[in-house]
């Protein structure tokens, strides 16, 4: 199947996003009307998949909950299999504003980057994560700067545009449950160009974030462990 020279796939990982999924898809349709959309339903027990399918987008259903890392990777595999030339990840929780999507894609093309991160902290935006989250982010910044050699301000943002090269690399690589910080080091080790762009994100409107302070500590320890695995990636 030959694709036109440029084809964009929007990857929407979603787990239990019944209250948000329709708004997310509507938002995408308004601001990115030409792009194909795939919702990767990561084993939701609610009506996430049903609603997305009714909205007329492609839905890939994981048979059980495999985590966000697996969900986006399935998206990359789908993009690779269908020869998409670029991908935009927009999480199913309505935090990522689709209207910023075209800007991320524009930067991807203009700067010939492989990864463009929509960052909450590059400039002073309205977004205020909880204090522990900001502390955690600072820790990632420091570790990633050390390991990766580039200062990335928002390592945990999942609002990202990927080049075809990044799609292929990430489709083939096992990233853990916290793919965002880990993929930065991995892509960098493969000589990919990473650019950060400031975006305004919404705070979570419906449902609640899965992250609590205790889980935050757990999260940080696990991400730090996964960052150590950069060396493994770069040796390969």
């Amino acid at each position, binding site marked *: 199947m030959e694709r036109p020279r440029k084809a964009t796939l929007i990857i929407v990982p979603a787990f239990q996003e019944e209250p948000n999924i329709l708004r997310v898809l509507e938002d995408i349709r308004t601001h990115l009307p030409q792009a194909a959309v795939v919702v990767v339903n990561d084993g939701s027990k609610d009506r996430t998949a049903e609603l997305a399918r009714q909205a007329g987008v*492609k839905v*890939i*259903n*994981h*048979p*059980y909950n*495999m985590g966000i890392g*697996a969900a986006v*990777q*399935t998206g990359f*595999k*789908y993009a690779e*299999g269908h020869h998409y030339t670029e991908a935009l990840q927009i999480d199913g929780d309505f935090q990522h504003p689709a209207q910023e999507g075209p800007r991320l894609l524009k930067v991807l093309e203009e700067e010939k980057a492989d990864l463009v991160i929509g960052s909450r902290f590059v400039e002073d935006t309205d977004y205020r994560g909880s204090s522990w989250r900001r502390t955690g982010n600072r820790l990632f910044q420091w570790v990633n700067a050390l390991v990766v050699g580039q200062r990335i301000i928002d390592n945990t943002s999942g609002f990202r545009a990927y080049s075809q090269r990044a799609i292929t690399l990430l489709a083939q690589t*096992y990233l853990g449950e916290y793919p965002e910080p880990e993929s930065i080091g991995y892509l960098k080790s493969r000589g990919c160009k990473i650019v950060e762009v400031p975006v305004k994100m919404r705070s979570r409107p419906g449902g609640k974030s899965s992250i609590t302070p205790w889980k935050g500590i757990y999260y940080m320890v696990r991400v730090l462990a996964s960052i150590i695995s950069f060396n493994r990636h770069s040796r390969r």
Partner: protein
Amino acid sequence: MNFLALKISTFFLSIFLLVWIFSLVRRRLLMEEYSFLWICIAGVFLVLSFFHPLMDKVAHLLGIEYGPAALFLFFNMVTLFILIHVSIQLSDYKAKKRILAQEIVLLRDKVEELSRKMSGHESADL
């Protein structure tokens, strides 16, 4: 000091372990590749329970005054290594299981797509 009670219990423990492992392998509940390790461990216990001086010598070399303590240390170390080994295998299986699940969902998508196309052709033919 008399370690007779310890000797007897260690002896029976190792025999029990050996019999159990063999029966698990025989009933195909445990693959023989994993049984090797356990049989070795049971064997070491058996030897140590028979040759008490050996245990004392090993303990002495490690600077442990009380012979049986060396046995416990040995057992703890072995358990730790086995647990790490099992964690490694679990990680490996998890990674492989994920790859398989992803293949399946993407193939299912392709099959659905194809059958939709085919049924479209059929109705066009009719």
